[in-house]
């Protein structure tokens, strides 16, 4: 004689997951819209200095009127030691350079070929001449400014007359 009914061994109802794909798709679309694709994974370490009143490069990126160049110490310690012996502490990194030897990749002399190759491979609808294509230099805080001017010299030779110095902007926007 029991006043309480014996609890049924009922299974817990399963959570309805039919809307899960919708939620995930929503997230997916958000990220697709809010982000831009990484142009490359540099093999040099770049800590950008801070700066104010900068210009946003996103519109140029969308029109592919900008190429990125990295300047920093190599991430790979072995490579760092090897180049340091040669007196090169800071190295250049260019993405997708058609290099003949891996050493070429870090040399200022490769800039011309890299820049021209990049320009050739731009979509034909892009009307901007090479003078208008920005070269954005992402340099490490400690990099010597002399290298920036070496890059400028190379760009001048091929009439790519726009350069941008990348910094981290914590101020406006």
């Amino acid at each position, binding site marked *: 004689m029991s006043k309480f009914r014996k609890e049924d061994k009922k299974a817990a109802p399963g959570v309805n997951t039919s809307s899960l794909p919708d939620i995930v798709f929503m997230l997916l679309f958000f990220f697709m819209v809010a982000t831009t694709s990484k142009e490359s994974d540099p093999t040099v370490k770049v800590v950008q200095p801070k700066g104010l009143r*900068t*210009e946003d490069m996103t519109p140029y990126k969308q029109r592919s009127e900008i190429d990125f160049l990295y300047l920093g110490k190599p991430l790979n310690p072995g490579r760092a030691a090897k180049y340091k012996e040669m007196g090169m502490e800071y190295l250049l990194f260019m993405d997708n350079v058609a290099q003949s030897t891996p050493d070429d990749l870090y040399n200022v002399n490769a800039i011309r070929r890299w820049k021209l190759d990049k320009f050739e491979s731009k979509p034909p609808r892009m009307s901007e001449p090479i003078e208008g294509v920005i070269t954005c230099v992402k340099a490490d805080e*400690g990099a010597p400014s002399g290298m920036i001017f070496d890059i400028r010299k190379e760009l001048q*030779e091929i009439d790519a007359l726009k350069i941008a110095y990348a910094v981290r902007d914590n101020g406006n926007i």
Partner: protein
Amino acid sequence: MAKREIPEINAGSMADIAFLLLIFFLVTTTMDKDQAYVRSIPKRIDVPITDIVEVEKRNIFAIRANFNNDLMVRKELMQNPDDISERVIEFYTKNEKKNDPTNDFPMYSRISMKEIEDNLRAAEAEAEAVENTPNAMQDIIDFKYRQVDEWTNKRNALKLLGKPELPEIHFQAHIRIEVQQATEYKLFAKIQSELEEAIFELRDRAAQDVFGESYGTIQRRYNMDKAKLDKDKMDLLSILYPAKFIEVTPKK
């Protein structure tokens, strides 16, 4: 005929597929915006320059930085790089209201609408004359037409300013950045940042004064919808405070 029910498609793995895509995008994209200072590199000249024009000392604002990251502004040592922007503002505004020949800052010229129009007409006549000359060099024709454009811009600027005269800093006035090979990029970037801040501050003051809105607002609105009026406003501000930076290549 037996009525067969259409079997439902199992959508259980849909979420997995979506997650996979999501993670792919998370990995291959970046959120951070690329921020930078855009500068122009002077065009290469093949012909050696013969007659070099002397630039008056008062028109030069030299910022020097050495291998030790010491800073020198107009031949004076500067401890704190944050002070550069104030000095730049001083450089631009010292003689803005009234020319004082005794100080060491660039002179201003004030030009009236009548003078601008006279100059514009003269420039137009000259451009036409050059164009009609047999076998004139294309470079010279282009140069003459650029001058015409310049005067047209000035006319529009003065119209927008709504004052009897257009103040203009001496055309030679410029800021030069002289760094050495080993100067850290950090300091170089800091100098650029300070210059940009100073120019913004100057143009912002003028924008508040003339249009009653901030320079930042005008810039943002122009970037959004490219209105003609905003373009003219920005042109006026850049005529009032031109950003002329020269970056001197360090010696080896």
